[in-house]
């Protein structure tokens, strides 16, 4: 039976407030036993060239074990704003649960209004596969990641952050698709009073 995204996968959760710490929590969902939870996260950072502190948890009495597979951060060259991360967690027992991801400012205090750098987008793209690749750009209109799949019929996932919100995102290539998006119609990080964009989507991979 082919590997597939399970119907139990929850909707994207997003949070944008002026708080120094923001959390997005999915609605309750029940992944099947022996599945893999893939959590795609993108969000803001609190100052150029600095990182947020990201944490992930769930509401289970015994939490799942989450592994951060890749983290494109603001300290990665070329210091583009925003973050994109991927976590995975094996699910051995089926039970109703929520997943919460928190973006904390850490030691950052100032959240200066960024003036941007031209018309092109600040984009992050994380691809998790065998290579856990990541790349970013402060000028490119698109990013392309290549990897060698670990097996026929496997799935590749990417978490993307376009800090500059240059437009509606599309997925290039053959067979690629956007499975969830928190794109705004005009801006992503909004005004100074809304400092954090924290969209999160969880997908459950099921191999019966």
């Amino acid at each position, binding site marked *: 039976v082919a590997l597939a*995204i399970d*119907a*139990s*996968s*929850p*909707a*994207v*959760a*997003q*949070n*944008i*407030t002026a708080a120094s710490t923001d*959390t*997005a*929590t*999915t*609605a*309750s*969902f029940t992944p099947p036993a022996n599945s893999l939870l893939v959590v795609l996260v993108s969000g*803001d*950072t*609190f*100052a*150029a060239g600095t990182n947020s502190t990201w944490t992930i948890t769930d*509401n289970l009495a015994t939490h799942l074990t989450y592994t951060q597979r890749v983290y494109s951060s*603001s300290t990665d060259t070329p210091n583009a*704003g*925003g973050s994109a991360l991927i976590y995975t967690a094996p699910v051995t027992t089926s039970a109703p649960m*929520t997943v919460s991801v928190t973006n904390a400012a850490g030691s950052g205090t100032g*959240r*200066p*209004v*960024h*003036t*941007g750098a031209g018309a092109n987008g600040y984009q992050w793209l994380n691809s998790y596969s065998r290579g856990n690749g990541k790349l970013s750009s402060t000028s490119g209109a698109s990013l392309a990641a290549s990897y060698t799949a670990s097996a026929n019929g496997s799935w590749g996932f990417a978490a993307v952050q376009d*800090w*500059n*919100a240059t437009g*509606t995102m*599309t*997925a290039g290539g053959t067979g690629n*698709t*956007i*499975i*969830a*998006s*928190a794109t*705004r*119609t*005009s*801006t*992503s*990080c*909004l*005004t*100074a*009073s*809304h*400092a954090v964009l924290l969209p999160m989507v969880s*997908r459950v991979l099921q191999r019966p």
Partner: protein
Amino acid sequence: MPKGDPLVSPYVATFGDYKYDPAADADSSRPNHAVRIAVSFDNTTHAITGAVVWRAANCLWHHIVCGLGADGTPNSSTFDFDLTTLNDATRNITANQMGRPPYNVDTIDQFMATQITAY
């Protein structure tokens, strides 16, 4: 690190299920396998002028919810747009309705002061 652009109406949020594929949608305002809310507001005062919710008949989700409920999950939040009766249809919500319980929001800033998701 806020981008610094002004907030421009409308605020739109779309929540797709596991079959959501926006590239296949002929009309992005009526996405398949998704629920959607578009909140319109005055760009100067940020006062909400109304909202429109959409639910595709083939979407697994029936609720758009803001904030968390007493049990810490979005599912029990009272800030709930119940879309159960919508099948490939939209529903208008007036500014007056948005300002009354259970929503109690008059500005887009108040609306976005909590998280949002769907189930």
